[in-house]
């Protein structure tokens, strides 16, 4: 599947805006990503979130990624 | 700190004059207790004057004016119909001080003795020609414009306190008004204040006094501004001259509440607006 990367994460992926990764869950996605781009570690430590079909997941790494889903990696957000 | 609550003016004077440390007069406390709370003052003695009966009274003077005791709150002043009718500008100015809660405590004399250049009631009192009745070793009476000598400084000597404010008898065909500028609708300190008191003769301004607040180190009585409208029927030209004279008299500072430029401009605007209200109140058309 294609995974979109938001601005700050692109630098860690050699400037790619979108990358191809096979993964069934968010955890798998993140692990694969880290294997391929060790520089992602720093972003993951600050906090990362995954958007699947527009819904943002900040914590639940067991979430399954449906086939054909629109997947996007974002920095982790907070609020007031 | 000691707290004393004398029941006569003489006892208050004695306490204040005998105290070796720092002594303060407590009336409404709406400025003094803020300073206490913010650790800006460390009093040795606080003399509460609210239990002195005469200081809680509003009385008509023999010549038709009013004597307002130093402990009379803004709320009490506002409830007095006779003064509100005679000197609406003074009453409105006093009632602009703070919220209803503050009005329950604050006093004109306190507003004056706190000696802030931005005090609301002071320009109105000055325009009205009010006088301060001082008790101390001797009694003396001083025009209100001579009380404040600088920010936080007054002409009162140690052991002196103001017992009451005297407002003169309202002349026929006269009116007064006070306006202030604040960014909100309530609860702010004046960025500029302007008071006008005038007397008409056949629609022409015969006498006038104009006072400004928050535009200099002390409230200002601006003679040039009064001169600009005396002899006129407050036409556009006179208002223009009034605004210009007020702006010219300003010696403001830049601070968190406003800029020099802003205060100079708005002083003129407010004086014009206040003059129109006073003129109308005096029966002018």
């Amino acid at each position, binding site marked *: 599947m294609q995974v979109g990367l938001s601005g700050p994460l692109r630098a860690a992926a050699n400037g790619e805006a979108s990358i191809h990764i096979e993964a069934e869950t968010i955890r798998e996605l993140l692990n694969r990503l880290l294997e391929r781009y060790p520089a992602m570690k720093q972003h993951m430590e600050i906090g990362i979130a995954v958007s699947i079909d*527009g819904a943002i997941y900040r914590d639940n790494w067991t979430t399954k990624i449906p086939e054909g889903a629109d997947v996007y990696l974002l920095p982790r957000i907070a609020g007031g | 700190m000691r707290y004393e609550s004398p029941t006569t003016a003489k006892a208050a004077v004695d306490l204040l004059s005998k105290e070796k440390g720092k002594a303060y007069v407590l009336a409404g406390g709406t400025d003094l207790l803020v300073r206490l709370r913010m650790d800006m003052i460390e009093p040795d003695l606080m003399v509460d004057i609210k239990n002195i009966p005469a200081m809680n009274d509003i009385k008509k003077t023999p010549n038709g004016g009013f004597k307002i005791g130093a402990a009379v709150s803004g709320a009490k002043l506002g409830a007095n119909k006779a003064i509100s009718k005679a000197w609406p500008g003074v009453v409105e100015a006093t009632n602009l001080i703070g919220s209803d809660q503050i009005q329950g405590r604050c006093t004109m004399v306190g507003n004056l003795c706190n000696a802030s250049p931005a005090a609301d009631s002071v320009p109105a009192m000055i325009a009205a020609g009010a006088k301060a009745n001082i008790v101390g070793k001797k009694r003396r009476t001083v025009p209100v414009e001579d009380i404040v000598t600088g920010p936080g400084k007054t002409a009162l000597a140690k052991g002196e306190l103001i017992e009451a404010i005297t407002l003169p008898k309202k002349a026929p065909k006269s009116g007064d008004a006070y306006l202030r500028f604040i960014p909100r609708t309530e609860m702010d300190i004046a960025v500029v204040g302007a008071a006008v008191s005038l007397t008409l003769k056949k629609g022409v301004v015969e006498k006038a006094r104009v006072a400004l607040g928050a535009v200099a180190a002390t409230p200002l009585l601006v003679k040039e501004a009064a001169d600009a409208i005396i002899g006129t029927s407050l036409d556009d030209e006179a208002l223009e001259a009034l605004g210009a004279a007020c702006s010219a008299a300003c010696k403001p500072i830049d601070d968190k509440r406003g800029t020099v430029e802003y205060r100079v401009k708005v002083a003129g605007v407010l004086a014009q607006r206040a003059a129109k209200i006073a003129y109308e109140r005096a029966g002018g058309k």
Partner: protein
Amino acid sequence: MQHDQSYTGQDFKVVGSRPKRPDGIDKVTGRARYGADMSAPGQLVALMLRSPHAHARIVKIDTSKAEKLAGVKAVLTAADLPDLTNGNAGDYATLENCMARDRALYDGHAVAAVAAIDKSTAKKALKLIKVTYEKLDHVTDVDEALKQGAPQIQPACDGNLGGRYEFGHGDCEAGLKEADVVIEKSFKTGQTHQGYIEPHACLATVGPDGSGELWVTTQGHFTYRNVCATLLGMDIAKLKVTSSEIGGGFGGKTHVWIEPVALALARKANRPVKMVMSREEVFKASGPTCASSMDVKIGAKKDGTITSAFIECRYSDGAFPGIWGMLGGMTAWACYDLKNCQSVGVDVLVNRPKVAAYRAPSAPMMAFGVESTLDMLAKELDMDPVQLRLKNVAREGTQSSYGPVYGPIGIEPTLEAVRDHPHMKAKLGPNQGRGMACGFWFNIGGQTCSDLNIGVDGTVNLTVGTIDVGGARASLSLIAAEELGISYDDVKTTIGDTNSLGHNDTTEGSRGTFSSGMATIFAAREAIEVMKSRAAQMWDIPIEAVSWENGHAVATGAEHGNLPPLSLKEIAAESPTTGGPIAGHHEVTADGSGVSFASHIVDVEVDPETGRTQVLRYTVVQDAGKAIHPDYVEGQFQGGAAQGIGWALNEEYIYGEDGCLQNPGFLDYRIPVCSDLPFIDTKILEIPNPNHPYGIRGVGETSIVPPLAAIGNAVSNAAGVRMDQVPMSPPRILKALEQA
């Protein structure tokens, strides 16, 4: 067990009604207990000594005289706290902000603390602490701080750059070439404070065995527990944190400020310690939001199609780096469907207090720049501003400016509602003008758990771990009642302490009702399963033959269908003999929160001679997903709008040349008073969030996003001047009028 979180589209019986809140009587009688309302036997009073300098090296702190003063039980400096200089960066910053070690980084930065038998003794002790400072150069302005040679605030950073984050897609340069019109403008916003009326307050106890208790006003008692225990080297399970009623937070009570110090003093003195901030301390040393400075450039075709949208916004994070630029960057263009867009958020360090979240943090600034510039574009194109926005509006399937493709969203419906609102057609008088603007916020979910216990009389205790900041207990009671099929009055919702529930994230990011609502629904469903099995026992039929309808167990199938249904009350009454107490429990990471959008309309009148702006009429239109208790949804819309109005017109941190804050009080930090505001009309739209069983989106934050620009646009229409700086204070407007 993974529950299906998707939207059920059900018809609601009690959800959507407006019952009385459960904490109402306590709060109107003065009985409700807030942070400063708790006392303990033998308690000490603690006060903080704070730096009078914007930036200074702490050469020496001599506490010996203070320690000798009768009645002083503990004196504390950074030397008494763990040195986290080389540890986790976040923990270091948090503790360093609570108590400066080597340098005071802003006016009001804590440098020492005392605990004494009463306030006046503590005050005297503070005066006896002698701190030797070496003053350093300071910088408080966000743009100045980025200049070469500006005093550096954190040695680990590159100058004062805390971080730079870019978002967007397409090619803005190429987009500009397609444009018929290009608008370019720079803007600034002042630093504002959440302005909650209750100052930070806590009561701390720690024994020599390392066990402690903390009573505190907070948006997240579990988070406070974890942070305080981590900073002080305590075991998390041994620190019990109880949240008081909270007197407003708006993001400002998501971080610790005095609590670790109070706990450390209590440990040192082995006595309960009460610590309450003064209002001056709240302004100087809690966590306001950022000041900002930004540059916007928008290109569009004659028909209004935006071909290029660029914004860079620099945020002042205070003395420690944060994520505020990043958050702002993500929100900038979120309302629109754009081929080419870029947003850059920059975090900048200055000698001001460490910034905390404030309601939709960082979004209002970006919206001020974006929505003001769009208004300028509409004027340039001679196009209706609502039409311009509708022309470019984001919809389901649009790729958002921060990356993901949107699901069902509500920006277009809010704009249509604004277009059709009678407010848009109302007549205006002289010197009056109307403005509108849009806003976006993410909303978040997070870790949550709820406990639901059914008493023998069939009444229900719901215990949740998310703080109720604005009426959530009423909403959660409604949800439990809805799910169980019982009356609202039969549910009592309580906020549990940290010993009574598993971890709950802080009430922030508009997550309270979204996430605890979700946990409550599933806890109730678990209890229903238990009740079905009890009913099966009572009837002596298989559980498969029992279903749950309208608060009753119903026997199904031909052979059992004639059994009269059993009510929840009847099942509860039998619970002692059918297996004991009936309960449901659920823990969840409530992800999948729905993004929310709002469009606001405002009328103002500007006095051309004084520059003063009066708000005459205000309308909020916002998508709530589903309004559980509409009163409190409206309350969130109104409160956010009022805060935005304050920000737009008068609120601002004012720093002097000396780098010290000049207005740390409600007298000169001017939040709107009652007579400043009109009634604030609201229109709730309900576009369900597909990732919540009831369709809930967060509602708490978005309403503060549009007001700055909406008012700026209204001022522009009323007075003919475009304000590029908030607050749009009278001196600024008068100056703009004179220059026009």
